[in-house]
């Protein structure tokens, strides 16, 4: 498990850059956290940390459902917020994305547990104060019980 305590959007992006160094080239990453927790902010850090796009070029995929980064695509940023049924999630080709050699970062994916592969990385963002967050990363293959970077 990897854990970060952040106090601002910039620190959350910085945590994303650190997480990027730990992620495999291909995996499903489930991003959980309430509205406004900073899921897209964390993705900005991850994409920037991988060096495939600037943090300012990463925006919310809520409406467009999927944003792609890299050529060939190395990161798919997916948001299932406005989808209600598994049929809709399948309909836009979610399962095809999982077969790609790429990172698939999914927001609001916990609403469709049946569609998620069992082997996955889970990142949870908890709101601990107005602008402070606790970011917990689980499921990294290099996981050792007590590894911790940044903060306490």
């Amino acid at each position, binding site marked *: 498990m990897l854990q970060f305590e952040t106090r601002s959007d910039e620190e959350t992006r910085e945590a994303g850059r650190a997480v990027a160094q730990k992620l495999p080239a291909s995996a499903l990453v489930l991003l959980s956290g309430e*509205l*406004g927790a900073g899921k*897209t902010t964390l993705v900005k850090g991850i994409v920037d940390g991988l060096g495939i796009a600037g943090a300012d070029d990463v*925006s919310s995929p*809520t409406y467009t459902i999927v944003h792609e980064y890299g050529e060939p695509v190395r990161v798919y940023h997916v948001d299932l917020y406005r989808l209600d049924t598994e049929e*809709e999630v399948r309909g836009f080709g979610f399962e095809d994305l999982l077969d790609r050699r790429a990172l698939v970062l999914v927001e609001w994916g916990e609403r469709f547990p049946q569609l998620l592969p069992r082997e996955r990385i889970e990142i949870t963002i908890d709101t601990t104060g107005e602008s402070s967050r606790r970011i917990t990363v689980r499921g990294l293959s290099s996981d050792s019980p007590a590894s911790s970077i940044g903060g306490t």
Partner: protein
Amino acid sequence: MVDDGQRLLSSVVASQLDTHSKYGGVVPELASREHLRAIVPVVRQALQDAATTFEDLDAVAVTSGPGLVGSLLVGVTYAKALCFAGSLPLIAVNHVEGHIHAVILEERQQSRDVAFPALALVVSGGHTHLFEVPAIGSYRLLGKTRDDAAGEAYDKVAKLLGFGYPGGPVLDRLAPSGDPRAVKFTLARMKGNELDFSFSGLKTAVLRWVEGHNLADEIAQRRELQRAHPAPSIEQWLIATPQATRDLIASFQRTVIEELLRRALASADEIGAESIIVSGGVACNAGLRAATNRYPGYRFLFPSFSLSTDNAAMIAAAAFPKLERGEFAGFDLRAQANLVLA
């Protein structure tokens, strides 16, 4: 179907077709399968409404991006097949460029030309972009959202207040019943490019306000209203919305409009714009349209409601300058999910 870049012959949107209802509750624009089912009847209807046939066409224009790759592929593949079968040129259009041309088309229909240089504000559920348009077909990106699109902020705020999704238009209609200065929201201050937008902080500020004002009962009441009536009238929504929440909605709307117009006007001044094109779904927002009247020194141009939201006529309109220049796509044209205009 568009004639000569200035006459709208027909415009068909899949969700308006009767055949569409049998597709059930799927969000239609998302699913490539739904596109596949809709594309043939939609094209047939567009030809029929324009009293034309395939033989009358000079070219076929298609959106090659940005968007969901599966949906784009259906259009690109079908357009290629039409062009191959009819020996017609294929023209690739960027979706965002289409929004800008919705306005140019409608001005031409009224025998007016848009004065350039123009500033284009493309604002919808998925986009919030400012472009300098020195002349037709030429674009320079001045600013864009770094997080949520303006329309997305509207829809998310509507959902958290219990107005369903997408509920942005409901907020626009309720806003006049509230005091737009009742709740003070902080305007976004952008580091780096000051013409970039951010709506995520505003969305979170609304969430915090809601958490601090014990709205659970009225939100539950509105959700119940929507369960009982699939599309409640504005009067029904008003009954279920106490004054404090109306004030919140009015203040939210005022803040979004200020964010949009502040940057649009600053950009227009910077480039010496002769006109300001506002297009995309949020261009339907009555509060935004009314607010532009406060700036008579600027020439604001909005499309009609039906051409503000996504449509194919704007793609045909955007293709005409390319037809004149002979700027055709080959059969190797690819759907590009992350295509950028500039």
